[in-house]
């Protein structure tokens, strides 16, 4: 009725309808959905990146002293604030209590604490300790705090006291006489001399030369460069050579011994095979028959060959062992004398650390940015190229990287041809109907089956049925030890191939369907047969799509862990599935897998606090490897696309 109102109302309504018509809200909705996805993915990646990348960066070493004289030295790994209850403060030693009360009153009851990685597990039975802010009396960064990363027992934090070069006694004759002769001979060299005695648990310790007459268990005479600077310089001078020798020892242990061993094992298996053959002959033709006699002769020959091989192997092994012993002896001569800062309530202790036990050492508080970067890169190098140590909590993950990549490649080799052939039949040859629809639905359902079910199937079918039969047929000699009748690389790859099959089939079908039928018709018109058309016209054009399917399959397969735990991924399997020992490829071997490694380090590791950052690093690595595999295939797809781009209509 009031005329001015009506047009406004109408205008508003029109405006709203145009808003919908223009689709503005839909832009916001779709854009918002994408933004949330991006934020989630980016957030996850950033978390993994941040945690994974900083793990190896060397932190400064802090020495914290408490009012009641306890000392904590190590790297600060985490900080948090907390609200200590009254009785917690009451339980504190009197020296700390007052300070704590005052500090808590000032900060409204909130205190901070820091998790210090104190290392030195052998001495304290713990790797980490929490220190509350009110317990800190003095905090400094000692210039000579040295971080040792050791082969065993984790990290060591302490001060270098001296570089020790030992001259071991031969053990023949009177040790005291020999030590005296050594002392006389070394006296002219101008370095300090000490006696080395064997303490409890065979650990070596130093004693002054004046104790020569009353010392028991003399082991060696040592030359000493005293002082932190001299100790560090001695370490730097010798450590590379020591590590070189240590690596040589590892190579001997792995390759040389491995080869001798495999040769011996082959001879043993041949003998066992001959034995089985003889048993068969006896059962079939009876003992005393010609066939039995022949089998008996063959067995005797195999037995002789085995014996010869055994003697040879024994000699070879003792030669290698002597070489290892020589290297060890040479390495053990060089040691570092360290003192701890005194962990917690215990007083400082002095420890001799052999140089060959030290993977890496650095004075954390003296490192320049370049020095830190050096330590950082060296740690990454070790992580990527070395074998795991100390029940997987330290060292590298090379066997796991190798296992993951080989398994994924083997899986692709199995799944792609198989899936493409199946999809081609479905799309090109099969007549559409109820059966084909059912098959298609079944394939799609297969994609939704939990992966652990595939694992159970793989274990039951591949390992226990196929593998066990293979063992009966081909590897009877090594029974009852299963060769293929257990989890291994081959069975794991095939299981994952089954798991990823639907992805490849669906992708291939889509790609094949997308090839315009006009092209097929053109091909038929030229007189090409069905298969010729598929091979020359359809497949090349569908190739980029097929490769997309492969990318998806790889991404799915490489990240899968649950089924692998059943069919071959294990905690520790340092023997790689491909190596220099005949027949070079060992698809029956158990293998390590990065995904399983993450699970193992994350949930099973004894020192879980130190293992946590390793979980992120390993995750980062796994993501990087999958990305690399994918990028390779995408690059391949790009090339294929370019190749056929010109001939597209």
């Amino acid at each position, binding site marked *: 009725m009031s005329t001015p109102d009506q047009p406004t109302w109408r205008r508003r309504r029109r405006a709203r309808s145009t808003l919908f018509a223009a689709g503005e809200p839909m832009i916001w909705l779709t854009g918002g959905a994408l933004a949330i996805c991006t934020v989630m993915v980016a957030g996850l990646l950033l978390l993994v990146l941040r945690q994974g990348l900083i793990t190896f960066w060397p932190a400064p070493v802090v020495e914290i002293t408490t009012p009641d004289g306890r000392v904590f030295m190590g790297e600060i790994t985490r900080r948090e604030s907390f609200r200590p209850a009254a009785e917690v403060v009451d339980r504190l030693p009197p020296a700390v209590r007052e300070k704590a009360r005052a500090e808590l009153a000032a900060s409204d009851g909130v205190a901070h604490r820091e998790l210090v990685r104190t290392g030195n597990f052998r001495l304290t039975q713990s*790797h980490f300790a929490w220190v509350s802010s009110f317990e800190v009396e003095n905090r400094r960064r000692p210039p000579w705090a040295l971080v040792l990363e050791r082969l065993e027992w984790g990290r060591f934090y302490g001060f270098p006291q001296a570089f020790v070069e030992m001259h071991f006694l031969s053990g023949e004759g009177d040790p005291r006489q020999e030590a005296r002769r050594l002392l006389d001979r070394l006296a002219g060299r101008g370095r300090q001399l000490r006696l080395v005695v064997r303490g409890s648990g065979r650990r070596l310790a130093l004693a002054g030369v004046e104790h020569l007459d009353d010392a028991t268990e003399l082991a060696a005479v040592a030359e000493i460069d005293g002082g932190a600077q001299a100790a560090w310089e001695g370490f730097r001078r010798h450590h590379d050579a020591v590590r070189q020798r240590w690596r040589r020892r590892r190579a001997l242990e792995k390759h040389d011994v491995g080869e001798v061993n495999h040769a011996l094992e082959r001879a043993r298996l041949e003998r066992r095979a001959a034995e089985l053959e003889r048993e068969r002959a006896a059962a079939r033709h009876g003992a005393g028959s010609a066939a039995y006699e022949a089998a008996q002769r063959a067995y005797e020959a195999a037995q002789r060959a085995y014996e010869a091989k055994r003697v040879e192997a024994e000699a070879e092994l003792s030669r290698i062992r002597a070489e290892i012993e020589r290297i060890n002896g040479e390495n053990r001569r060089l040691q570092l004398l360290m003192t701890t800062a005194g962990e917690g309530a215990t007083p400082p202790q002095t420890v001799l650390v052999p140089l060959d036990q030290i993977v890496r050492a650095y004075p954390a508080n003296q490192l320049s940015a370049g020095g830190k970067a050096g330590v950082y890169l060296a740690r990454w190098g070790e992580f990527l190229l070395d074998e795991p140590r100390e029940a997987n909590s330290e060292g590298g993950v090379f066997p796991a990287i190798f296992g993951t990549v080989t398994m994924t490649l083997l899986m692709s080799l199995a799944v792609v041809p198989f899936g493409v052939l199946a999809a081609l039949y479905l799309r090109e040859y099969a007549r559409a109907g109820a059966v084909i629809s059912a098959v298609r639905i079944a394939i799609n359902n297969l994609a939704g089956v939990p992966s652990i079910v595939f694992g159970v199937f793989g274990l039951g079918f591949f390992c226990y049925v196929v593998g066990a039969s293979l063992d009966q047929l081909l590897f009877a000699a090594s029974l009852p030890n299963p060769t293929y009748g257990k989890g291994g690389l081959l069975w794991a790859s095939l299981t994952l191939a089954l798991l990823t099959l639907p992805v490849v089939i669906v992708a291939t079908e889509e790609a094949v369907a997308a090839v315009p039928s006009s092209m097929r018709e053109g091909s038929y018109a030229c007189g090409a047969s069905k298969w010729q058309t598929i091979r020359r016209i359809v497949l090349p054009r569908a190739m980029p799509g097929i490769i997309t399917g492969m990318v998806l399959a790889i991404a799915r397969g490489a990240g899968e862990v649950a089924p692998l735990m059943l069919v071959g991924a294990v905690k*520790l399997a340092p023997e790689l599935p491909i190596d220099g020992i005949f027949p070079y490829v060992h698809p029956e071997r158990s293998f390590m897998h990065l995904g399983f490694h993450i699970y193992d380090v994350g949930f*099973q590791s004894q020192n879980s606090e130190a293992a946590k950052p390793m979980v992120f690093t390993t995750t980062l690595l796994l993501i990087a490897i999958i990305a690399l595999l994918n990028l390779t295939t995408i690059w391949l797809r790009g090339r294929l696309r370019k190749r056929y781009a010109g001939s597209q209509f």
Partner: protein
Amino acid sequence: MFKTRFALPAAALAAALLALPAFAQVQADSRQVQVDSRLPHYRPASGVSGTIKSVGSDTLNNLMTLWAEKFKEFYPNVQVEIEGKGSSTAPPALISGASNFGPMSREMKQAEIDEFEKVFGYKPTPVHTAIDMLAVYVHKDNPIAHAGLSLPQVDAIFSSTRKGGYPTDVTTWGQLGLDGEWANLPISLYGRNSASGTYGFFKSKALFKGDFKDSVKEQPGSSSVVQGVASDRGGIGYSGIGYKTADVAAVPLARKDGESPVPPTPANVASYPLARFLYVYVNKKPGTDLDPLRREFVKLILSREGQEVVVKDGYLPVSYEIAKKTLASVGIDVDEAYR
């Protein structure tokens, strides 16, 4: 400057070293766990080759790996495959021949022994390898870590059947005598999956063979129990003492109400109510010797070096007497074998 610094520890050391027994005494008093010095050192033998295949306990998973690493130092030619998904996986693998060592964190049940006997005609042989104190962990700030708990209380916390005889169900920390912010905090339970020997041992000793509550969050590994408790203020869980971190506290336990609770420290191994042996089962036919691979591995486990590894993994080493008895049960004379 270096003189003063260096002379001091060296002099102290020399004095300490020359009186070795006294030195050992000092160390035994500190937190350091000492391996029985009567245990012999390991000496490698000849003719050892093959594959160590171990399937079984997750508690022993790291220990087996560490022993195997040590074994490889002596015998680089030996191959190693180790799987640890729970003690219950050990007997089937041992029976089928898929493994030659079956680490278990509990004793084999009668049913499992029968199953083994049905196939081989004799019983499997347990090797006592280490001592674990199954610890009940709480968050590091939880005051109950000072007060301690009795086993019936633990039973009332974890179990729905309360066979320990505690009168009421316990669901909040206040019911255990905590006040302040803890009084109304609900107890959040962490435990192991049923394939685990730790689960079985805890059920029989702490729950008096009763049943777990449904609200126990079952974790796939010992370490994940500890991590769960570490990140949950109201959390409580059980795991081997070797898995302790700075983020959790181990609760002192008393066998009965009214007794004084005992913390799981090496000194209390005899009085702590949840101490247990960790076993490695082997298939040994009576009257025959073990093959060199298994014989030497068992010898290594029970040598000084092997027991040092036990300490490294946070467990307690066995004494000379136990080692001697165990070795005798697999046909090895301790004084002969290591010479």
